């Protein structure tokens, strides 16, 4: 379970470039829920994810992940419970290392790293099975550098690495935005399949209203650092994109200037 309470994040306080990215976000995600987050550019979506991951220190507020207050903990200490897939496929995987080595790094997440060999034959067999399940034919390329793979293949590997170990929450930061439409659809389907199988708790930021409604159990919209609406269940099922736009206009008191939310 994830609990975010009264979270405030401000960049460059006291400078002319001061940006108030989050202004009091309250959010509780129960175990096993798949939440999608939408919002225009600068609404605070990525900031929320970064704050939960530990990349950003909030000014005030509290973040609890699985009954543990992690507000002050750095990223690497949260990594045992928080896994992440980045928008840029280059960020989530280490291109100079092989597929196998990347998986070994993910497998050791949250454990003590000692002087034992990083790649053991036992793991190798398991890696092969897991990679084969992606259906990309990568199981014979475990020894290749991951930089040789395409963006979509790397994103699929990122997803596999993120979910290799039990986690409290999976953070997806527009993880299909950098891919072509066909590959994006494949990665999204793969995401849904893994989430379903592993019964994961997910927070997925997306630029597309369609994706936000099609996937998951609950949808939030952020605007100027606040959650302006939060729908789930039947209400969400009967919601269409025009409904979302109307909801946005009434809640924020302005029209949506950012086309990308509709087009994506």
């Amino acid at each position: 379970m994830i609990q975010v309470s009264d979270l405030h994040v401000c960049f460059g306080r006291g400078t002319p470039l001061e940006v108030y990215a989050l202004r009091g976000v309250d959010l509780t995600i129960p175990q096993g829920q798949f939440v999608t987050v939408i919002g225009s550019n600068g609404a605070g979506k990525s900031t929320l994810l970064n704050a939960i991951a530990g990349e950003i220190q909030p000014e005030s507020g509290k973040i609890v992940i699985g009954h543990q207050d992690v507000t002050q903990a750095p990223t690497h200490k949260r990594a045992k419970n928080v896994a992440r897939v980045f928008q840029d496929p280059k960020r989530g995987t280490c291109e100079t290392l092989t597929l196998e080595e990347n998986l070994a790094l993910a497998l050791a997440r949250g454990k003590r790293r000692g002087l034992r060999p990083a790649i053991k034959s036992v793991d190798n067999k398991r890696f092969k099975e897991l990679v084969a399940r992606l259906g990309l034919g990568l199981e014979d390329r475990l020894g290749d550098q991951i930089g040789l793979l395409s963006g979509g293949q790397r994103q699929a590997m990122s997803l596999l690495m993120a979910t290799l170990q039990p986690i409290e929450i999976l953070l997806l930061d527009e993880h299909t935005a950098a891919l072509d439409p066909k590959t994006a659809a494949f990665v999204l389907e793969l995401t849904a399949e893994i989430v379903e199988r592993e019964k994961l708790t997910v927070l997925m930021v997306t630029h597309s209203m369609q994706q936000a409604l099609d996937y998951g159990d609950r949808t939030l919209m952020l605007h100027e650092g606040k959650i302006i609406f939060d729908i789930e269940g039947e209400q969400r099922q009967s919601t269409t994109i025009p409904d979302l736009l109307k909801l946005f206009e009434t809640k924020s008191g302005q029209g949506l200037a950012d086309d990308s939310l509709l087009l994506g």
Partner: protein
Amino acid sequence: MSQIAFLGAIEVGLVFALVAFGVFLSFRILDFPDLTVDGSFPLGGAVCATLITFGWNPWLATLAAITAGAMAGGVTAWLNVRLKILHLLASILTMMALYSINLRIMGKPNVALLGEPTVLSVFDTLGVKYYYAAPIGFAVVVIAVAGFLLFFLKSELGLAMRAAGANPHMAKAQGINTGFMIMVGMALSNGLVALAGALFAQSTGNADITMGVGVILVGLASVIGGEALLTPRTILLALLGCILGSILYRLAVATALNTDFLGLQAQDLNLITAALVAMAIVLPTAKRAVFKPAGRP
């Protein structure tokens, strides 16, 4: 080139292979341009030579030199990780400070080891000729260190270190404390460089405050030269490249100095070094241009 000049080149080449390992760890594995090396090489020499003249066992003195080098590397890493000083600047600060520290350790600009026991004294008792002793002894050390690095870089900790250097974002997301990895890697790197300094002082018979000048350049030339000769697809190839690059660099210098028709003399060494380093940096690009891999633009 005489046989003694050849063996001398091999000997120095092997010592600088250790420097090349250190530079490989900082520049290539950690992506940390580290100039501390110019201070930690004479630090190793100074600590070792001073302790030997105090009557310490040469092996223990060498061990103390490694520890001192590791601490110097740790200081550079700490300046960068904790105090957020730019890596290059942090290393220059430590290098500067080490100049004074080395003078303090030795108490004078150089310490002679004439007649003192060294780690190479073992060979005297075995009756091995002095010009064979150092190349054989240093080859054993270099192979042992390369074996250790190969094992370490393939361990869980080593893999985490490689990830921390290559992609810090990904490393943190996988629960790796990147700051700690930089500390460990820099300590290891400068410990190796100090070991090289300690061995160099023992084989030449003195430690000198100026012995560190340009060491980083020679180390870098060896690493880059090695990469040009062997494409380092694996850790083993990269380590072999360091050894090969370092020895070939010394042989090139020795050849240049021993070839009469070029008219080069000892005072031209720095000119030759600069020319060889420039060549080593250009060579990989030139190699790529000549041998284009099939199917790639």
